[in-house]
């Protein structure tokens, strides 16, 4: 018997950070989350899965277009025709979603209650699924505490949307302790919410399958669902299945001080080609980070626009590559990269701008007006440009320090 465990579908959530440019495979990324969902359904049907578990976040919370819900309902109907049972819990996004409230799903789909934890028992399969939906966006209590006792003689699965013991970049909702989950006596914990695939435990299995489709450059690598094969109430295998249609990658190129722009482009092409190969026929959304000593980085940074254009051309040439953007990062090796600019550069280099509270306050003040102009999509949520958040500001300051340092060095070397 096969059970498929997926989470964080975020249907119709846009793939972010991909600028429109001539030749970009825009069509491929436009409905990527839907295509990934179709892949999931097809996989369930083709591999004769008995149950599909969805551990929350079907939709983006602020997405209001009901056609997204209708799409999901249609896909669930396909599963019904394929004889696949579906159990869903609502995540924080679903709880906030207008769609969830109004959508009627086919009868093969069981959405678990938000009021209290409940159990769905599939007697013919010998499987018991326990779970509880989010009632509202911000659930801060440990939902797993009141999950029912395991059903004797059945294969017991806990379906839970949770940040577990807290994960950076994820809202700290429905926190729980891995040890307590393990102690619950279930055979498998199907978690959702954390977009990075992670196996928290193997005795019993506690798994975040990650989201179905990466949506920005911080969600890199294969994305998909987890296939659990159970025989005689015992897990035989737990495997990750890649179901994404667009693969995110951060290509990194380290260059020497004498590297020319052409060298950088050559290395970037090789790097992107390698990533594309790994993407296994999917469209690759790639960011390029060029690291190196200030001299080389200054050359690249000075020609940033033309280099970006060249990189887009390379992406077009490789086909199926969507070039996200170019980032440059100066690497400092204190001994070799002083650049003779003088003592002040060392001072600036060693200055801990990020931990200077006064500076932080100043930066926050300086950016307040600008922040007010930015849309909420940029200033909040995962991967946000959170100008009001001290941690983000510190990171920005660190970055600014590096950038300034690189420029100052370049300027002084020229001078």
């Amino acid at each position, binding site marked *: 018997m096969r059970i498929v465990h997926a989470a964080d579908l975020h249907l119709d959530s846009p793939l972010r950070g991909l600028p429109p440019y001539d030749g970009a495979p825009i069509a491929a990324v436009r409905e990527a989350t839907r295509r990934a969902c179709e892949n999931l359904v097809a996989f369930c049907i083709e591999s004769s899965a008995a149950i599909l578990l969805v551990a929350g976040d079907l939709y983006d919370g602020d997405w209001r*277009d009901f056609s997204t819900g209708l799409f999901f309902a249609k896909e669930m109907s396909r599963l019904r025709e394929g004889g696949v049972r579906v159990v869903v819990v609502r995540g924080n996004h679903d709880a906030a979603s207008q769609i969830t409230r109004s959508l009627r799903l086919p009868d093969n789909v069981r959405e678990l209650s938000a009021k209290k934890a409940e159990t769905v028992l599939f007697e013919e399969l010998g499987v018991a699924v326990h779970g509880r939906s989010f009632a509202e966006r911000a659930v801060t209590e440990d939902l797993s505490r009141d999950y029912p006792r395991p059903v004797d003689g059945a294969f017991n699965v806990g379906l839970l949307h949770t940040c577990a013991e807290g994960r950076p970049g994820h809202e700290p909702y429905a926190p729980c302790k891995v040890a307590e989950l393990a102690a619950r006596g279930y055979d498998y914990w199907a978690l959702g919410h954390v977009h990075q695939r992670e196996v928290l435990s193997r005795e019993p299995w506690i798994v975040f399958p990650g989201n179905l489709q990466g949506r920005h450059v911080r969600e890199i690598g294969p994305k998909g669902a987890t296939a659990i094969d159970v025989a005689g109430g015992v897990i035989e295998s737990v495997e990750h299945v890649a179901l994404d249609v667009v693969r995110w990658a951060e290509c990194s190129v380290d260059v020497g001080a004498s590297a020319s722009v052409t060298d950088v482009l050559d290395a970037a092409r090789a790097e992107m080609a390698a990533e594309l190969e790994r993407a296994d026929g999917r469209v690759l959304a790639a960011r390029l980070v060029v690291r190196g000593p200030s001299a080389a980085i200054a050359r690249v940074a000075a020609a940033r626009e033309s280099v970006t254009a060249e990189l887009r051309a390379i992406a077009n040439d490789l086909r199926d590559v969507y070039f996200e953007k170019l980032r440059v990062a100066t690497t400092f090796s204190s001994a070799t990269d002083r650049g003779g600019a003088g003592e002040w550069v060392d001072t600036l280099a060693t200055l801990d701008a990020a931990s200077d509270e006064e500076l932080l306050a100043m930066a926050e003040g300086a950016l307040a007006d600008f922040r007010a102009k930015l*849309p909420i999509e940029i200033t909040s949520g995962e991967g946000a440009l959170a100008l009001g958040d001290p941690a983000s500001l510190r990171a920005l300051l660190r970055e600014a320090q590096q950038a300034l340092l690189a420029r100052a060095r370049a*300027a002084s070397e020229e*001078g």
Partner: protein
Amino acid sequence: MRIRALRLLAFGPFRERTLRFDSDGAIELVYGPNEAGKSTTRRAVLGLLFGIPQRSKDGHSAGEARVGATLVGDDGRALEIVRRKGAKNTLLDPSENILDEGVLARWLGGMDAETYELAYGLDHEGLRHGGAALRVGKGQLGESLFSAATGLTGLHGVLAGLQSEADAIYRPRGAQLPLNLALRTFAEAKKRIAQLATTSDKWLEVEKQIEGARGELRDLRAKRAAAFEERERARAVAGAARALEAARARLAEIDEALSATNAELAAIDAPAELLGRAQAVAGLQERLGSHRKARADRPRIAAELEAIEERARRAEKGAPRGAKTELPPDARVRKLAMEAERLRERERQIESREAEQASAIARASERLAAMSPLADDAALRDALEAARREGDVEARLDAAARRAERDRTEAEARARSLGGFSGSLEELVVLPVPPSEVVAAHARDAAAIAERRRATADRRRRLEEDRADAERALAALRAEGDVPTEETLARARADRDALWEAVRGGSSDATRYERAVRAADEIADRLRREASRVSRASELGATSVALARKLEIVGDEERAIETELAAHERAWTALGKPSGLSRSPEEMLAWLARWEIAAAAASRAIEAGKEAQWLASSVERVRGPLRVALERAGEPCASDALSSLERAATRALAAREKSAKERAALESARDAGEQERDRIARERAACERERATWSAAWSACTRALGLPDGASPDEVTTAMDALADLARAEDDLEKTRRRLDGIDRDAARFTEDVRAIASACAPDLVGAQTSIEDACAELARRLAAASERRARRETLEEQQRKQNAQAADARALVEQR
């Protein structure tokens, strides 16, 4: 710019206090205890250069604050200024005239007060402030401090670069900058998404509307179904009422119709007797037509009978009297008549063709007889063919003869110029000359021998000269005095030793011995003293001997050379003998070269001569037979040239060929004519046989017809026609008589049948008043009327049944209602 002197004219605690800074480039340090006025002085400088602030408390108790200074520029120029506190026109020259601020600004290089403060006016507070500014990278203060601290230039450039980059991306009030644009685009896109999105509320609302509409639709459909039902029921009721009314009316109608039917039925009378014989009456009607026709035809047929009888009489008159009863078939007679015609035509054709062929044969024979007899031209043809095979042999002969003549002339000229030869060309070619290689070898050998001889002679001469020289020198040497030699010394010593022995033996006296000893010693001394002469003499002696020996060897060589030379000359003489030529090898070589050319020319001349001869014999070989053949053929040729003979032969042969063709054509025409004549003769025989056969058959016919044997086909045909007419007339007569009898018989039977039926069914028709035909027609009419009445009765009876049934139904219906 430097400040050379600062005059605190009236500033703070100072009055007319001058500080001089004369050290020219060195750092000037002004120091003092607290409250001495250092900061005040600094403020005074600031005030001097940029104006004394209105709020300043540095005014002097004696009056308004005033500071003066002597400034020296980098170029050494000096400027005297005074600054007073005030709102405007505060910069003065020493004479209190107002100075333009611009003058001082130029001296300051555009520096403003803040920059000055940062760069030169640092105090404790300022340093702290500047440090903080530095950390946030803000303002000129930070930059200046930063620069001052590090000596780094261009930070401003970096900052300005960053600022301009930032400005190019976004400005709070920018409209077209990328980030501004992007933000706007984003906001618009968001708005559009909101517009385009189908919210769940809207979806549910629409769904609810659809559900409501569906319910309404269901209600309306139910209502419509009920209305339909009601209408159907109403329609049924209304229909029933109408039907009852109609049924009643119909019943009345039916009853009425029924009574009418009954009345009509009662009135109908149909005679059963007549109707029982309906078939017989119908049969009579059918026969009535033919009866009438027969009656109408009878007179015409009777007239016909008479005409036939007349025709028979006429035919009988025209027919031959003695004709047999069994006549030959008409077709055969006619065929024979036609055959006669055909035979005649064929006989005429045969005759005309016979005449035609006879005349053609005669014409051909006549022309053949007129032609000359056929001659055998094989000999002429062969001779001509042989001549042609040779080609244009005469021209070739001509060319060969000329070439032979030319070659011979040339060869003879060459033979003559050869010298030493007087024979024929043929002899010249086969002259037994030695091969030039052999001659050349001889020449080389002779030259080598001569060379060696000369070399040997030279050597002998040199050797003899050398020996003469050596002997002359030796003689000269000896002429100078005898030359002691080792031999003379040895001899002297031998003499001495002998004398010593003699002395010891007492055989000689000591004097001699002493002389001998002295002589030997003298010789030995001279040998030592005249060593060079001695060695020269011995050398010359040895040389002379050696040269004599060499001369002997040379003598041997000379003899050997002479022997070789003699042998060589003998060989040469032997070589030249056969050709009878005696020349030196060199001459012989030159002669041989000329001979080779002459011999080649002679060969060519001989060959050419042979060629010409051969060609001449070829011409003769073919010309003789050709001439003879022409003469024999009776075509003698005036010219004896081969070409003329060939042309004559060709012409003669062409003429003969033409004549032969004509003859052949004539002969074939004659033969064809003869063949045709034979064929016609065979045809005539066949034709005659047919004629005999025909005559026999014809005679049989004429006899059968009772005609004489010689009756012509026309006579026979006429007789035949007459006999046939007679037979046909008799036949027609018989037929017509039978027809008349039949008509009469049918008429009698018909009359009888009509009377029989009439007497049974219509006795009124039996009588003399009514003709039989009218009676028959009347019977038919009466039967038709009776049939009609019977049919009507049957219809009425059917109607009566139906009306009864309808009446019953209608009555039942009405009662039911």
